């Protein structure tokens, strides 16, 4: 009897232990499945690029909400861990180190802009992480990193492709323009754009009659425009940041710049507040852009995304329409998310290979990366401002004010040439 009792106690103990072990093994994967996937990044939320950086963050938060509503990635909710890099490149390496070593994020994406992306590259490369990047011009030319993916549609030769459209358009005109003036801001992005413009000008046999840079803090651009006018160029290529872009457009109007094509690489003319302020001064300018509300660029999901963005942007002091950067900030997370789902894990090598091998459906259209992580085919738009009325913000929300001239596949109209104020 005692033996029987002891035997049954042993069976009971073993049964309880087995049940406990079985339940523990069931609970463990369930807890892991609920662990969030952490995506880490820095963003320019203060400082010079904060206007765009805050808009990008709004777009990224929309993606996070959208993906979490669909059940997250790999069945796990998505969380962001991010820090303000204050538009200071020197802060970026330390913050990414913290994201990786302290916050232990699962995936990383970049901040906004060339100057903020480049300093993160050595840290990311050492860890062999996939690095989707947001609007860096030719960053990977220096690093040749095989897990870098740039969402800005510059194309396989970013410096050249970025300005190719402006010069291709110029060369289609009759008689062909022959002389060129280049003015660029004395800063990384603008200098890269101007370098590309020089190569494109050489390819098209232009004679460069003016080629200068201007420093940050330049208050008056009328002497620059007069100096350009004195060289009588057929076309004027400008690579500038928002204050310089506004200064150049106003000075060109005040001085009465006479040239046949004017624009090219002016950052700021894509933002609604600046467009409203400059109004009819913009008419005739041909400038780069990445997305405008023209019928040829009505990609699936972009209108729905912009509706959410415009609602979320209210009262936040950012671009109210968000045509320029936000769709791409949403898209680079779409690409990463699709790659994670397709590879069914967080293996960085597999994700990178998938991103190289496949085409992604995003709100900015089909995205296919080339070997260097840039878009396999350039889609830098050249748009021309037309029929812009004074003091009217609403006019820029819909089509008809920024006509797509280039690339031809996406064109919504023909150029008005020569430039007239």
């Amino acid at each position, binding site marked *: 009897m005692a033996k029987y009792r002891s035997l049954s106690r042993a069976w009971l103990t073993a049964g309880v232990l087995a049940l406990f072990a079985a339940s523990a093994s069931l609970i463990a994967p369930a807890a892991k499945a609920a662990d969030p996937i952490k995506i880490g990044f820095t963003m320019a939320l*203060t*400082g*010079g690029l*904060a*206007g765009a*950086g*805050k808009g990008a963050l709004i777009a990224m938060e929309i993606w996070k909400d959208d993906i979490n509503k669909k059940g997250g990635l790999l069945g796990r909710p998505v969380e962001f861990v991010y820090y303000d890099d204050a538009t200071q490149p020197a802060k970026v390496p330390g913050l990414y180190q913290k994201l990786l070593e302290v916050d232990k994020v699962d995936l990383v994406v970049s901040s906004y802009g060339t100057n903020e992306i480049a300093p993160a590259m050595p840290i990311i490369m050492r860890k062999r992480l996939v690095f989707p990047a947001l609007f860096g011009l030719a960053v990977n030319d220096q690093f040749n990193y095989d897990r870098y993916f740039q969402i800005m549609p510059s194309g396989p030769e970013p410096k050249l492709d970025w300005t190719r459209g402006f010069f291709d358009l110029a060369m289609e005109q009759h008689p062909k323009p022959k002389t060129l003036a280049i*003015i660029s801001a*004395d800063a990384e992005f603008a200098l890269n754009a101007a370098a590309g413009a020089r190569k494109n000008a050489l390819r098209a046999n232009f004679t460069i009659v003016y080629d*200068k*840079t*201007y*420093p*940050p*803090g*330049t*208050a*008056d651009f*009328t*002497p*620059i425009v*007069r*100096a350009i006018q*004195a*060289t009588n160029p057929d076309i004027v290529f400008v690579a500038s940041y*928002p*204050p310089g872009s*506004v*200064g150049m457009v*106003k*000075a060109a*109007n*005040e*001085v*009465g710049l006479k040239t046949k094509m004017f624009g090219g690489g002016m950052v*700021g003319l894509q*933002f609604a*507040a*600046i467009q409203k*302020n400059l109004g009819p*001064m913009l008419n005739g300018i041909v400038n780069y852009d990445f997305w405008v509300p023209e019928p040829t660029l009505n990609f699936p999901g972009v209108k729905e995304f912009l509706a959410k963005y415009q609602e979320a942007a209210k009262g*936040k*002091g*950012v*671009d109210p329409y968000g045509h320029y950067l936000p769709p791409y900030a949403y898209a680079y997370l779409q690409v990463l998310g699709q790659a994670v789902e397709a590879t069914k894990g967080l293996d960085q090598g597999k994700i990178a290979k998938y991103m190289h091998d496949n085409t992604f459906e995003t709100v900015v259209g089909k995205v296919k990366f080339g070997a260097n992580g840039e878009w396999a085919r350039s889609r830098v738009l050249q748009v021309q401002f037309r029929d812009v009325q004074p*003091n009217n913000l609403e006019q820029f929300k819909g089509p008809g004010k920024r006509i797509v001239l280039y690339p031809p596949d996406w064109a919504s109209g023909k150029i008005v040439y020569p430039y007239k104020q």
Partner: protein
Amino acid sequence: MLTADLLANAVVAGILLGGFYAAVAIGLAIIFGQLDIVNIAHPAFIIVGAYTAYILNSRFGFDPVLVGVLAAPIFFIVGAGIYRIYYAAFERTGQESLSGLAFFFGVMFIIEVVLILVYGVDYRLVAARYIGSTWSLGFVDLPFRLLVPFVTAVALTAGVYAYLSRTFMGRAIQAVAQDRLALQLMGANPVSVKQWAFALGMATAAIAGSLLIIIGPVEPSVGRLYIGRAFAIVVLGGMGSIPGMFIAALILGVVESLVTTFWGPSWAPAVAFGLLLLTLAFRPSGLFGR
């Protein structure tokens, strides 16, 4: 490439630009030049003036210069308050040199962060009928976007100069700049005089801000670009000299404009600041220094 019209336009553009620089620097000429207070936050207050102009211009369509003039008394009162804090915390205890500088650095950052939190970081601009128009006198063009700030700056400089040289309080400010102890022996309160002078300098920031936003777009941290230039103008003009400050501003503007036109815009700050160093080598007290 050197033609008469290009040269004339470069000189005129430089004079107009110099006028605007004078409006930016005049507050510092009083606060730093006469009171020896290193108010590094002065350009940040100019940005507050620019935002004030932006808000009233975008909401009610007020002319930016008018807003600047109307906001000046409020800036005056705020300036008086800031000086009181500065005096109580640093000057009275003799810690104004390093701690005072840190204080104004702090004020500058607080202003920038508050502007970012309240108004965001987008570039702000104003609309006025004269922006974009140009007055042509023969082959010389005078863009109203620069002419209006120039005329306002001339009026502001003349007004401040007349006030400092012809009124009792103005002379008291000059006296406290020269010999604080002597003023005290005369029975006057130097702290009150300095408070008044600091407030006057701050009031000019409201007007300078409205001129800045007429010329170009403004965001919260853009004031930092003017710190070096404004202090350089005050030093070049001769610490505390209002006419000296104005002439120094014109020289800087004209040199920048000539270099931009005939040499290249990137050289403009280097040549202008080189000129400052050269002048100080021969006249350490500045052009009109005592």
